[in-house]
Every structure is written in structure tokens, then in C-alpha cells.
């Protein structure tokens, strides 16, 4: 704080002006009008309470604040609408309460609140700024009489920076308004230099305030081997036991408990009836104990792919693919010898490409083995004859009803895999969606009826199990209907009963007619 510096700061003329004091608001209003009529514009009035008409008396023009508020309010309105449109209908289309993605009634509350928010903030901030605030000092504060402006006195102020300011004229003008007192008031001469300590503290606070944000940003952008920070524990640690964990609560120290007596099983009922299973369990397990039956169902579940490694083929390529991302691909034993281990070293950057490249050459496309022939499935003693009457119309009607209710949502009404659910999922481009199987594919057509029944009962791939939902009779009815659908797709004219042939030959396309009924 050197002296020359201070002088430099003072060099522009310090503001000063005339201040007159009045005892009531009517005197003040009269004085204001006089000063206004004399052409002064840099004036101000101070009173302990708001005075009606003071704006007009001082010649203050109507404020533009309403327009600022209106513009900001409309900005809030349209901004909220666009934001919600973008969020709900573009960036993250997600069905909420069955409402459309762009759902105006649901948007209106947010639009309304944003309008209010923007209007309120712009009004307050605009009012503060238009009033010339924040303003840390005003010359009038130097006059001790001014303290009574918050109590019982009324003041009028004429600034020296007014375009027409002339000290003597202002003096005589104010004198003519018969004030209680009037003075020249000058801004005090104290320095307006902000102490450097204040700047430093402010800078330090700002810098410290940046730390949490930058730490979060850095974590967002980098990877780490360390376990995550648990700022909030959420549900990461829970006082519960998982399977295979120990517990001191029980004498045998096992956390997993056997089902209590009388527990009703849902499925795995221990039936060995081919009617309930879709295959004859005897060849696998000579006795019909529940354990054996379960073994059969387990074997059936992982049919084609599980069978491959037994034949000396490499393990599933999917696993080596996944492993290859982090470390050296677990190269299949025999096939790897031929192909060397070059992918591990030279092309570590794109292991996802190398692993499949190695696999098909050695392993005769294991991925296609399952869908194409399903040889392993053939090994099970599937039921190949319908255990229900094939020509029973009631059975067919039941099958149609149950198929339409349970299956057609995915497989489509004619079983071709084209359906509303599938179309919708494809439209949403959800990565995990698997196209439903067409029941007219050759591999499905050659499946024994027991296998189809088994698929309905236990599910397959993405398809859920329907054993709990449909009775065995209903499942067989569905198989019957599926068979009918398959027949109808490839039916020839000779398959159609004699009386109806004329109808078909009249219309040009023959194959599209359903012959099921």
C-alpha cells in the first residue's frame, strides 16, 4: 500500500452531491417534482417506507424488469419442454406408466416450475442489477443525519455527476423546497483498495472448492484396480448370508438350510411319467428316484454345447474370448499348438478378433452345431408319439388358445417369430434381445414332439419355462397346435380335404391358407 498507488486511485473526482432533509413524505414528493422539473436525472430519494408515486415524482422511467422476467420465464418454459423432450423421447426413451415418450401433460409441471424458477431468479437478479447493486458505498452514508432515513426523516439526493449539475443552482433549488437541512455530501476519502489477504482467502476457498469436483472428474475418466470407495454404503454390505457361507447360528455352521418339513415344491416333483417330462427317463436311470429324474433334466438342459468338449474339441470360444480381454487368451490345447501363441503377443490389443479367428478353424464352428442338428438332444429318449389324441378338435382348440395367449407374443400368431414384442425390442435396439425362433425352421420341424414339450416346460435360452404356468395337458395341446402350424406352412393341395380344394384353387395362393382346422 504505497502512497503513490493510493493517489492514483483517488485521482478521478470522488462523487459528491447535495442532500436535503424533509420531515414528511409530502414535502419530499414536492421537492422531487421540483428537482425533476429542473431536469436533473441523477437523483435519488430515501424514505423509511415505500412512497406511492415517488417514481413519477422523481421522473424514473418504467422499468424494463417485466420484460426481462417475461423473456426468462419463456426461456424456462421452452427450455424445460426441450429438455424433457430430449431426455424422455430422444436420449432415453423409456416407457413410464404406459405414457407416450413425448407426453405433454406429464411435462407441464416441470415446465411450470422452470418458468417460475427462471422468472423468479431473473426478477431478483435483474432487480438487484438494475438498482446498481451490489454497491458497497454511497456518499450519503457519510452524513450522520442520514441514519434517520430508516426512522423518521426523508432525504433527497442530487448527484454531482448529473449532466446539468451546477452546485449553486442545485443549492438554490433545494433551498426553495424548504428542507429541514441541506448539505454537500462527499464520498469519504478512505481507500477502496481491497486488502490482499481477502483476495488470497477468496482464491484459496475457490481452489479448495474445486478439489471434490476435479477428483470426481478424474475418477470418471480413469480406471483403477482398487475397490471402489464407499462414500455411501447403499446396499453393498448387508447382514445376510449367501449360499455356501458359514454361520455360527447353527450347530453345523452352515448358512444354507434344507427346506423345512412340508415345503411344497414347484416343479421337480419327482414324476417319471413321460407325459409330464416329454421323454422316458428309464434308460438314463433305471430307477425312478427324484435324483435320477433331476439328473436327466440337467443333462437335457445343456445339450449340444455341453456334448462338444467330450468329443475332444476345444472349450467354448466365448470363454477364451472373455479371458483374452484381460490376459493371454486361454488357447485350446491341441488347436493352439497348430496356431502358435502369436495372438497373445503380437495382437494383444484386439483379442476379441483373434480368439474367434482361431476357434472356427479348429473347432468346426461349434456355435452352429447346436441350432443346426442338435445331435446331443437326439440322444435323449424323447417321446415321439403324441400321448394325447391327435385328431381331437377340443385339444386343438385348447392348443390354439394357449398358444395365442402364451407363445404368440414372441413367436407370432403363426409361429414365424414375427411379433409385436420382437418388433418392439428390435426397434429399441436392445443388445440382449434374441430374435424368437421361427417354429417353421427345419431344426424345429424335425424335433420330436417330446422335445418341443420339454422346451415349453423348461424354457430354452432366453425363453422362460412354462411348466409352472401350463398344465401338462395344455403343453401337449400347444405341441399339437405347433405341429399343425408347421404342417400348414408346407401343406400341399393334396393335403387339403377334397371338399375344400375348390375354394383354394379359386384363389391363387395356396400355401398361405392355414389348414390346421
Amino acid at each position, binding site marked *: 500500500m504505497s502512497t503513490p498507488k493510493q493517489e492514483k486511485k483517488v485521482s478521478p473526482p470522488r462523487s459528491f452531491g447535495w442532500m436535503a432533509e424533509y420531515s414528511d413524505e409530502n414535502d419530499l414528493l414536492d421537492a422531487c417534482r421540483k428537482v425533476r422539473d429542473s431536469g436533473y436525472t441523477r437523483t435519488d430519494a430515501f424514505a423509511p417506507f415505500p412512497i406511492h408515486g415517488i417514481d413519477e415524482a422523481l421522473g424514473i422511467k418504467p422499468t424494463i424488469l417485466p420484460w426481462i422476467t417475461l423473456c426468462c420465464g419463456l426461456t424456462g418454459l421452452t427450455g424445460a419442454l426441450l429438455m424433457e423432450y430430449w431426455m424422455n423421447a430422444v436420449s432415453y426413451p423409456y416407457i413410464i406408466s404406459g405414457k407416450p415418450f413425448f407426453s405433454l*401433460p406429464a411435462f407441464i409441471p416441470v415446465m411450470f416450475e422452470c418458468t417460475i424458477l427462471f422468472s423468479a431468479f431473473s426478477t431478483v437478479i435483474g432487480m438487484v442489477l438494475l438498482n446498481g447493486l451490489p454497491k458497497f458505498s454511497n456518499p450519503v452514508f457519510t452524513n450522520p443525519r442520514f441514519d434517520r432515513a430508516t426512522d423518521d426523516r426523508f432525504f433527497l439526493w442530487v448527484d454531482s455527476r448529473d449532466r446539468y449539475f451546477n452546485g449553486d443552482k442545485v443549492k438554490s433549488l433545494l433551498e426553495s423546497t424548504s428542507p429541514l437541512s441541506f448539505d454537500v455530501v462527499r464520498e469519504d476519502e478512505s481507500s477502496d483498495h481491497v486488502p490482499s489477504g481477502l483476495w488470497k482467502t477468496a482464491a484459496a476457498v475457490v481452489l479448495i472448492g474445486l478439489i471434490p469436483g476435479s477428483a470426481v472428474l478424474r475418477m470418471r475418466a480413469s480406471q483403477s484396480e482398487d475397490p471402489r470407495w464407499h462414500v455411501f454404503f447403499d446396499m453393498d454390505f448387508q447382514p445376510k448370508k449367501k449360499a455356501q457361507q458359514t454361520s455360527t447360528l447353527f450347530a453345523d455352521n452352515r448358512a444354507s438350510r434344507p427346506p423345512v418339513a412340508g415345503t411344497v415344491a414347484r416343479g421337480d416333483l419327482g414324476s417319471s411319467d413321460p407325459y409330464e417330462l416329454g421323454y422316458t427317463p428309464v434308460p438314463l436311470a433305471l430307477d425312478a428316484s427324484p435324483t435320477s429324474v433331476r439328473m436327466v433334466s440337467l443333462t437335457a438342459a445343456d445339450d449340444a454345447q455341453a456334448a462338444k468338449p467330450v468329443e475332444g474339441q476345444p472349450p467354448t470360444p466365448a470363454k477364451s474370448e472373455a479371458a483374452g480381454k484381460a490376459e493371454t487368451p486361454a488357447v485350446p490345447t491341441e488347436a493352439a499348438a497348430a496356431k502358435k501363441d502369436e495372438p497373445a503377443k503380437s495382437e494383444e490389443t484386439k483379442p476379441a478378433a483373434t480368439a474367434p479367428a482361431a476357434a472356427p478353424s479348429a473347432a468346426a464352428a461349434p456355435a452352429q452345431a447346436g441350432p443346426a442338428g442338435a445331435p446331443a438332444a437326439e440322444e435323449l429318449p424323447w417321446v415321439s408319439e403324441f400321448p394325447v389324441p391327435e385328431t381331437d378338435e377340443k385339444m386343438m382348440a385348447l392348443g390354439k388358445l394357449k398358444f395365442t395367449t402364451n407363445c404368440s407374443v414372441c413367436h407370432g400368431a403363426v409361429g414365424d417369430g414375427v411379433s409385436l414384442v420382437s418388433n418392439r425390442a428390435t426397434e429399441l435396439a436392445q443388445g440382449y434381445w434374441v430374435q424368437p425362433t421361427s417354429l417353421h425352421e427345419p431344426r424345429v420341424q424335425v424335433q420330436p414332439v417330446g422335445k418341443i414339450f420339454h422346451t415349453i416346460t423348461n424354457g430354452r435360452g432366453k425363453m422362460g419355462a412354462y411348466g409352472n404356468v401350463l398344465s401338462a395337458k395344455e403343453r401337449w395341446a400347444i405341441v399339437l397346435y405347433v405341429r399343425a402350424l408347421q404342417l400348414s406352412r408346407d401343406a400341399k393341395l393334396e393335403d387339403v380335404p377334397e371338399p375344400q380344394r375348390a375354394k383354394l384353387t379359386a384363389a391363387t395362393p395356396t400355401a398361405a391358407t392355414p389348414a390346421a382346422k
Partner: protein
Amino acid sequence: MVATANTILNDDDSLPSHWRAAAPVLMAVGAVSILVSLALCYLASPGDQRMVGFETFLHSYLANFMYCLTFCVGALFFVLVTHLARAAWCATIRRVAEIIAVTVAWWAVLFLPVLAMVLLTKSDALFPWNGEDNGLAADKLMYLNGKWFAVRAIVYFGIWVVAASYFFTKSREQDETGSAEISLKLQRYSGPLIMLFALSLNFAAFDWVMSLDPTWFSTMFGVYIFAGSMMAFFAFMIITFTSLQRNGRVQKYVNVEHFHDMSKFLFGFVFFWSYITFSQFLLIWYGNIPEETIWFKHRMEGGWQYVGLLIILGHFAFPMLCLLSRHIRRNRTIMCGWSIWLLFMHWVDITFMILPNTGPTSVMMWLGHAVCGVGMVSVFLSLLILRVGSTPLVAKRNPWIPEALSYHVM
């Protein structure tokens, strides 16, 4: 301020004499119109549809009754709330509100046909819960039954008539004495009375309008009616004072500042009404529960959907945008125009609440309903003029008058 406290302006505050002369005519027009409406609805229907026509007339009568009643309850609330808030600005215009509020006693009489329908017949022509085999749960019928309905109606009107008469009588007393004590006393009573008012208006709305569809319910319904009432009341006040001033009355007592304030309230209640109406719709629409959405289902078919659209635009969007500006709110002619439009929209709104219960719209329905509306409004105006009589239209010796006169809207 003190110097002007006893100033009584030389201002004409009597009712124009040709208005007074019009009162019997209006009464006759009203009575005839209501009968014509009954004839239109009942006789013009084909033989087997006559009961439906009669039902339409009953609904129309109730709707138009509610329309006129909302002015009275709006006025009563205004009188109560301005006393409660010790509002000074309204001292010069409150007398008119007091007179409108006190006419509520006449409307108790005009409610008698509805009450007679409920008590003397077992007809479900108006209120389905009144008929036999209405299929309602027993605990609902414990509330919705003729006798209890009548008791409640008497209580509601009792509260309103007592409150309105008390405030009017005391205000008239002040005209003689000029005592500030009276104002203080009224302020003290306004608090408890406003609570009673809120409860009675809410339940009246439930009883008289909401129970027309007794399986449907909305806890906001009372506020919905209240918001419309207040808007209608301020619109009516603006029209009244514009007409009075056109006839050379209350030129000095009522100035542009008072109009500006009434217009602000009008604007505020246009928006409040929209807020409440939309909130009610949003909650029901989002919840999507059949027993709640059915009310809007009835109002989204059979021609009512266009009425709903008109309400959105005419009761909210256009007035909301146009009344935003201070310059418009300070212009008496434009505001009078908007008030007339909003009174019409209020009528459409009340219609939209009640008439869809009779079925889809039809030309005959609108005709009968409009004629009944003209009749009921004529009766309302006639009763109002008769009630004014020689009562001065300004409470000149109210202690707040000087402040009300020197008042400026910032």
C-alpha cells in the same frame, strides 16, 4: 392522511334509476326463460325421451344455479378475506361485494326445487344416489342420502346467510356511526368465519356438483369451484363498476387503481383456476385408475371434448397471455371486455362440470341450457338490483376510505 380522514367526496353512489326500473322486467324475463327452457327440454323431446329431457333441464337448472351462486360465494369470500387482511385498497368497492354476498339468502330459496326433488321423490334424475337400486356402497349412502343432504344444505346456506348478513348489517351501521370499532369487530369475526366458509364451500361443491357422479371423487373439487367463483366474482365486479361509471356513478370513489387491483385478482384467479384444474386432471390422468378417469372419459366424448378444448384456450391460454400486461389491466374498456368473455367461459366451465352427466351434447341441450342460463342470470341481476334498493354503493364512512383513495398500485 389524517386531514383527509373525514373527507366525503361529492360523488353519486346510488343505483341508476333506470336499472331499478329494469328489475321487474328482468325478473319476468328470468321466470319466463326458465319455463321456456323447461318446455324446450321436456316438450321438445320425443315421447319416450321426455324423462331424459327433464333430466337435462334439472341439470341445466343446477348448473345455472351454481353459476349465479358462485358470484355470491366469491363476494362473501372477498368481504371476509379483505377484513381478515385489513385491506385498505378495497374500502370503496367492498360495499358492492357485500350486497352481492347478501343476496345468497335468495339463492337458498332458489335451491328449494333441487331440495324438493331430492326429498319428495326417490328420483335419480339429478342425483343418482337418490334413486332406488343405485348400486352404491352402503357406507357411501350413509353420507349421500336425502335427509342428510338437506341438513347439510341448510347448514351451508346458514353459514353463508348469517356471515353475509352480519357483515352487511354492520357495514350499514357504520354508514350511520362511522365507528372504527365496527371495522375492528368485523376483522375479529372474519377469521373464524373464513374457516367455516372454506369448509362449507368445499362440502357444498362435493354435495351439489361432485355427487352428480357419486362413484367419482376428487378431493380438489371444492377448490376447483372456489377458484372459478373468485374469478367470476372479480369479472362481475369489473363489469359492474364499469357500467356504474358509464352511468355517472362512483366516478371519484373508484379510480383506475382499484380497477387495476381487481384486474390483477382476475388475472391471478384465471391462473389459479388453471393451476387447480390442470392439477386435478394431471393426478387423475397419471394415476390412470378407471374409477377416477371415468369422469374425464365422459368429458372427452360426445362433443364435450370440443368444449374442453374451448375451456383450455378460452379460460386459460388466451386470457392468461392477454392479461399479463399492466397496460391492459389498467384499461377499463379492455378489462370489461375480458371480464364478459371470462364470465362466459365460467358458464361453459360450470356447464362442463355438470351437463356431461346427462350424456352427449346436442343442439337442443345447448339451446335449453342457454335459455335457462339467460333466465337465471336475469333473476340474479333482478334480485341484486332489488337488494341494493336505496343502499349507497360506497361505504363512505369506512375508516379505510382515505387510504383507499390515496392508494397507488406500484
